[in-house]
């Protein structure tokens, strides 16, 4: 199976340098639809879906491999090798920030610059570190995923349409951008919200930009500051955007900050 098919890789634009955009927990590469086109004029852009999300090949989902962020980072390194990336720019949202950090450590020189959007090395509070969630909160989240939430409507839509030969009819109706296999969604939630990559931050040597939103309950300003303090020489930009997805709610601000950095 090709890596392109496995990770639903889409390459656009052209330029001497490459920007890889990685989506976070929840949706897929569509998260970057308001941001990545702005860079296609000067850069080659690579968008991809993590295995298990969006248009990736679900049959490539190996529970053991993807039980750690390191498994996802291996995929990113493979993508980098496939496209011969050197000194490229990685833009990762949410949990992909840490996936990018791990990939930069695994393959020195592949990514010269990291842009971390709403990063958190640990969502769970540990010792005197405040990640924002207690272990109980995260357990509650994982339990609630058993109730299926979006997975429910995603799973039901084709049946409701009653036309399995033409699944595209179903896609138009439902919340297709965030559709995923419920079991994989739960496993991804587990690895996302239980990982602890604080120690990895210290080893980052790539130029690093942290984009921090206001009122982000997933990754608070305190967490952003922790990442900024811990990654040597990193730069932090506090956006005016609120919430966890500035790539959707304030794409212009995100574009400007990235352009300024690269």
């Amino acid at each position, binding site marked *: 199976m090709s890596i392109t098919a496995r990770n639903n890789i889409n390459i656009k634009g052209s330029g001497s340098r490459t920007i890889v955009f990685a989506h976070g927990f929840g949706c897929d590469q569509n*998260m970057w639809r308001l941001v990545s086109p702005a860079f296609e004029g000067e850069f080659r852009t690579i968008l991809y879906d993590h295995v298990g999300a969006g248009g990736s090949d679900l049959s490539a989902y190996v529970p053991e491999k993807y039980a750690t962020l390191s498994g996802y980072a291996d995929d990113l390194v493979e993508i980098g090798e496939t496209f011969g990336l050197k000194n490229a720019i990685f833009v990762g949202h949410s949990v992909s920030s840490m996936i990018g950090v791990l990939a930069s450590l695994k393959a020195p020189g592949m990514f010269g610059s990291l842009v971390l959007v709403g990063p958190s090395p640990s969502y769970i509070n540990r010792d005197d570190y405040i990640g924002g969630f207690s272990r109980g909160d995260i357990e509650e989240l994982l339990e609630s995923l058993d109730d299926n939430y979006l997975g429910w409507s995603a799973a039901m839509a084709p049946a409701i349409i009653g036309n399995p030969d033409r699944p595209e009819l179903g896609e138009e109706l439902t919340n297709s951008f965030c559709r995923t296999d419920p079991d994989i969604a739960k496993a991804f939630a587990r690895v996302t919200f239980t990982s602890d990559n604080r120690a990895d931050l210290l080893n980052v040597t790539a130029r690093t930009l942290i984009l921090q939103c206001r009122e982000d309950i997933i990754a608070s300003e305190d967490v952003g500051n922790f990442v900024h303090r811990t990654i040597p020489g990193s730069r932090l930009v506090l956006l005016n955007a609120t919430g966890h997805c500035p790539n959707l709610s304030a794409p212009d601000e995100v574009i400007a900050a990235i352009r300024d950095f690269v």
Partner: protein
Amino acid sequence: MPPLPPPFGFEDLFDNAPCGYLTLGPDGRIEMVNATLLGWVGRTREELVGRKVPELLNVAGRIFYETHFAPLLRMQGFLNEIALDLKTSEGKRRAVLANAVERRQADGRTVATYVVLFPASERRRYERDLVEARAAAERASKELAAFNKTLGERIEAAVAERVEAEAGLLAERETAELREQFIAVLGHDLRNPLASISAAARVLLREPLSERGVRVLALMQGSVTRMAGLIDNVLDFARGRLGGGIGLVCDADEPLESVLIQVVDELRAGAPDRLINTEFSLTEPVFCDRSRIGQLVSNLLGNALTYGAIDEPVRVQAFTEAGALEISVANGGQPISEESFLNLFQPFFRGKVLGSQQGLGLGLHIASEIAKAHGGTISVVSDQIETRFTFRMQTAGPQRS
């Protein structure tokens, strides 16, 4: 749109709609909230206006809102049937389904978001049941698969075992058939030369002979008789095993006694130095196969001569009484051991005896088969005084069912 009749109006339509209703400003903060929703969460309008939707949710709901709800709404401009849990002022949860739509300006900027919430406790319970049912089905399916696997393995092993056993059985059966056919042919072929020897001995008896010659001829006759008996037994046994059973030709036309006398005389001739006492009182006709009864008595008497004490007489008694025939053969000597008792009538069972007298071990087996064929029995009593085999049958012959 026609105005609603007083005291109602659009305000009432909004406030008391049968669903929760929220409008959000461009920054995602609550601008309007209807009375229905306020009632559900137990809050006042003042408490909620200016807040964000995640603040109405539990922790999981907040994460979900930020990672799914908000981005999805931004991307497609609407969302339908998103399951959320509202947190009430009492700390309880209220399951709802949310639909939302963004109102955008021409330049794409969001001006407002409308959110409606429908109670979904029943549906949530139903969904949980479905999830549980699916989990149960998956477990059952896994168990079934495991069971099928072991079942398959067990069947395979059983089939292999069975095939092996049947092959063995078949081979054994073939061997047994061959053996029995061989015995039948052998028995048949042995009879002819034996008949010649017997005829030759009778011819010789009519010649003038020395005393020693007469005695030797008598021994020869005895051996021929014994040999003939053995061959009969072998043939009957083989025939029985081949499915023919012991064939009987019964009638009550001739007296039985003469047959018995002939049998005793034959054996007496073969054992001239043994004493055989007879006592016959056959007053009723007996419906039987006389030659078979003769074979039975010959076998019993042959046994008595072989196993009994040489210095004690063998007693043959036969009488009829009240519709029953009883023939017994008794000898002295060592009683039959206990372990031998169990197998006396089994084919090829032989008691302990010296050298040349050794038989095939078919005599008692054939005798009991003949008794059975006549609807009769053979019983044994054996003690220090005597060993007595007693054959009993109804003089009316075998009862046909």
